[in-house]
Each structure stands twice: as C-alpha cells, then as structure tokens.
C-alpha cells in the first residue's frame, strides 16, 4: 500500500490510536507525526461530532451542618480513553492526576471546576487557578494576578466568591502556539448580583459598572494584563455563579442580567448583547450552553396544576436575537415518578438537541426531552450525607489531538 493510501486510513483514526501507532515502526512514526497528517486529521475531524466530557463536583455538609466538604472533581465522558474501564461510572479525575497535585494543601481542600475552552479545564482553589488537560493529565498553575489598589478593600474571599473566571484562546485552535488565556471579570457588588423583580426597588443605573477592567493572563507571556472594557450601553451587573463564561467561536459569552453578553476575545470589545427570554430569570438556577452550534438556555418553573416544567430555548438567530422555545417538558411523567418528578439541570448535550444531563439523587442521567425517558445513568459512589451539586459544570470537547499545555 502506498503512503498516500495509508495516510488516508490513518487520518480516520481517533487521536489516541494515531498517537499509539507511532510505536509501530519508524516509518509509521514519521507518517503519524508529520504536519501533513496533522492538518489532514484536523480537517477530517472539523465537522464531526467529537467526544466530550462533563465535569462537575459535589459538596457535602459535615455533621452538625459544619463546614462544607468538597468532593474531588468528577466527570462523565464518552471519550474512549477517559471512559475506559469506568463505563457508566463517574471518573474521579483529580485522583487520576493525583501524582501531580499531591501536596497537602490541595489534598485537604479539593479544587473546583470553573470553566472550559475546548479540552482545557480551568480549575480554582481559593483564588489560585489551574489549567488542566484531563486527557494527557498535564496541568499548569496560573500565577495569581498582582493585587491592585481597588482590590485592597475587598477580602480575598469576596473576590473569590464574586469575581468570575473564564478560559479562552485567541484563535479557533488553541494548539497554534498562542496557548490559552484566562480572563477574570471583576467582582460585582452583592446587592447588584440579582436582577430586580418588577415593582421593587430599582437600582439607579449609574451604580452599575458600565466601564470595568478585566484581568487577562496569557500562557504565552505568563503575564497578567488589565484591560478596560467599555461596556456602554450595557452594565456588568449579574454574572451569576451558576452560569459559566462560555468560549464559543472566538468570543466570550455569559448571562449578564437580562441579557446574553458577548465579549470579543481578541480586542476585548463588547460586541453584542441579546435579551434573554422573558421567563428566564437569573434569580433561579438556569442552564446555559451550546447545542448544535446554537446557544441554549433553560430553566425549571413550577406552575399549577402542571407541576414542574422544563423550558429550553435555542437562539435561532444570534445577530437578531430570536429565541425559540425548543422544548417544554412536563416533569410529571412516569419515568420521574420515583424521583418525585424533579431533577436538577446540569448541561446540554452538545450534539443531540433532545438530550440534557440532569442530576437526580446523587446520580447523573441523560434525560430525553422528546420521549421523557431517562436514558443512561452514571453512578457517582458518594458517601452517605447531604450532598449538593456545586454550580459549575464545564463541558470539554475533545476535538483532534489533545491540547498541549506550555511547559
């Protein structure tokens, strides 16, 4: 067989096989390490569904309602390497890379997942950020940003609780040598965190920050820089803890008050903001993600006499801002009877618009919104106690080769 034909076959392999087969012989190694194969491989996988991993974390209250104990970060994945030998069980990912994280400080207080960009996971431990590739088990520490004058009034805890972090890269492809960037949105005053219900006290608009500075860390320069963002006519007012900063198509997006705000990751300009569906109030936990390339938001409402209803909207037209109600699902159905007709929203399936991931009594399920069936179950093996799911579920997409973290 000619090299051309062999290459045609090899580009169709999953990335773990490509990397493994470099060990076959020198000739295969040179074929499988060539720039040509890599570019063909990326192109071949560009429009295909890629394996993904849903990352989450549980916490538990200790006896007598004592301090919260955080479980190690868990995940469910359909990536062949990550899900190997843990079929339908959650993976204890940090335990997997324990060797590297093994110091007493981290062991006593597990770190938490914050956000994701492609296959990179941003984790946080009291203001210290780590970027992890769960597949290659590589990680790097993001040095803490320098303390500014305006931060001195804030306690480290309030910065940790109220500021919001995201991870992104300048280009579509994080592997082009530019590496990744971490963004910190400033802490928002607690009294401004919730959008005001109608007819109650209205906060004067001048209190909202319409210009603010974001802090950006670049893995290439290993430096933090502060960039002022002109935010008029919007104001940074309610990037709530349960909706993550998403990096999608070169922009950073988050739920900001009554709108979906987009920040151009390249020049840090507010490029766009779209009103959210009226029924989506940020006072209640809501889902925010991307499904089939479109933004998707969801929330559970309670309505007599129907009981709980799940509402899911897709953003059909990003530029004009048309939300389309894709699903209205009554939870009062047979499959959910033994769970008292309730679940907790976690994440949207990135490719199948009928599927969402939900949490029910310490387990993760795939719920089919069209058929009302709980399709797969991932057992989480939690110890006895009062468990709560922490409000951040980054979704990793394993497209092409795993992202290499700079040394």
């Amino acid at each position, binding site marked *: 067989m000619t090299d051309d034909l062999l290459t045609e*076959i090899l580009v169709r392999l999953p990335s773990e096989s490509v990397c493994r087969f470099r*060990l076959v*012989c020198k000739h295969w190694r040179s074929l499988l390490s060539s720039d040509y194969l890599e570019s063909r491989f990326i192109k071949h996988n560009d429009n295909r569904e890629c394996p993904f991993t849903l990352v989450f974390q549980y916490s538990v209250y200790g006896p007598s309602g004592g301090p919260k104990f955080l479980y190690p970060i868990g995940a469910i994945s359909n990536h062949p390497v990550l899900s190997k030998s843990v079929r339908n069980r959650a993976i204890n990912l940090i335990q997997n890379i324990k060797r590297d994280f093994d110091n007493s400080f981290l062991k006593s207080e597990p770190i938490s997942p914050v956000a994701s960009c492609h296959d990179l996971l941003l984790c946080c431990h009291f203001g210290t950020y780590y970027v992890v590739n769960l597949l290659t088990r590589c990680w790097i520490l993001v040095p803490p940003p320098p303390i500014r004058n305006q931060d001195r009034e804030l306690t480290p805890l309030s910065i940790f609780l109220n500021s919001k972090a995201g991870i992104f890269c300048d280009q579509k492809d994080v592997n082009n040598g530019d590496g990744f960037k971490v963004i910190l949105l400033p802490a928002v005053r607690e009294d401004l965190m919730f959008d005001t219900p109608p007819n109650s006290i209205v906060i004067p608009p001048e209190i909202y920050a319409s210009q603010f500075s974001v802090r950006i860390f670049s893995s290439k320069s290993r430096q933090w820089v502060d960039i002022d963002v002109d935010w008029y006519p919007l104001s940074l007012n309610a990037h709530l803890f349960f909706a993550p900063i998403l990096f999608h198509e070169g922009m950073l997006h988050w739920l900001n008050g009554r709108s979906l705000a987009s920040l151009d990751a390249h020049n840090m300009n507010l490029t766009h903001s779209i009103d959210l569906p009226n029924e989506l109030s940020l006072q209640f936990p809501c889902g925010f993600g991307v499904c089939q390339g479109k933004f998707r938001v969801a929330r559970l409402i309670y309505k007599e006499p129907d009981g709980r209803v799940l509402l899911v909207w897709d953003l059909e037209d990003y530029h004009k801002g048309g939300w389309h109600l894709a699903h209205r699902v009554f939870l009062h159905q047979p499959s959910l009877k033994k769970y008292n007709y309730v679940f907790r929203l976690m994440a949207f399936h990135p490719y199948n618009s009928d599927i969402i991931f939900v949490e029910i009594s310490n387990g993760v399920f795939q719920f089919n919104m069209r058929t009302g069936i709980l399709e797969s179950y991932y057992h989480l093996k939690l110890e006895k106690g009062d468990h709560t799911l922490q409000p951040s579920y980054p979704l990793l997409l394993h497209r092409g080769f795993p992202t290499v973290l700079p040394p």
Partner: protein
Amino acid sequence: MASSSSSSLSRVVVKSSDNNLFVVNKKVASQSQLLKQCIDNMEEKGTNDVILIPLSNVTSNILTLVLEYCEKHADFADDDNNNQELKQWDHEFLKKFDYATLNSLTMAADYMVTKSLLNLCCQFIADSIKDLTVQQIRQIFDIKNDFTPQEEADIKNENAWAFR
C-alpha cells in the same frame, strides 16, 4: 462531457490485469471516474465501437468486487447518499473481507478513482484497527519493529496518554 446523440455508448468492456473481460453497462462504469473519463473521451471522438479499457493494476477477483459495488451504487445513484439501506449494504459488503482483500480493494478504488468506495474502505479499515495493539498492527501490516528499546520507551513516554 458533450457528446452527439449518435455516438452514445451503452456498454464498455473492462479488462483485468489477468486478462479477463468484463462487460459493464455505462451507468455502472460511471461510478469509476477513470472509466467514466475513458467513456467520455471515446464519445467525444464519436466512436461507435464497443471500447475496451485495460486495467493493468486490478486482478479479476478484485475487479469483480469493485464492479459489484459500482452496480449497487449505480442503482442508488439518484437517491441521496445518506440512504440507510445503502449504508447497511456497504457495511455488509466490506465485512466479508480479510485485510489483504481490503487493502487490494482500497488500492483498486484509488486507481479506478471510485471516491466513495475509497472513503468507505479507508474508514472501514480505520474502524477495524483503531482498538488494536501496536503488536497486532505489526502483524496485520507485516511490519518489523525497527525501534531500539530506548526509542520505544521515549515514544511511549511522549504519547503516554494514548497507552492508558
């Protein structure tokens, strides 16, 4: 492409490398860009004779298989490519063969420029080898390990995640 109505061929004869002749109707032959090009060229010249296309790289065993594929796909030529029945047939078709046959079929598909068969074979081979060990790959492709133990250790180390 352009041809006068008087010089339209309905059939061609294809000769395998071991000198067997196959009569193929035009619609079936058109699944192969190589055969189609030959037919188009002849039609442009206005030949009315039945043309003979020698394929010096394809044995009759393999040519039979390529033509079986082309015949099936010619039947579905007007349907969309996502036809489930056809996909099922493709899978059943390739399932029967060993690696040697699949390799020959891939090379024939490449030589005869039958793009859909080439894609199909490549994906089928990729799917069937993806979970194999390095040792199994060497066996199937008849490859000798030419690494030193140190080189092997280095490669394993560089690609550690893929060996888990």
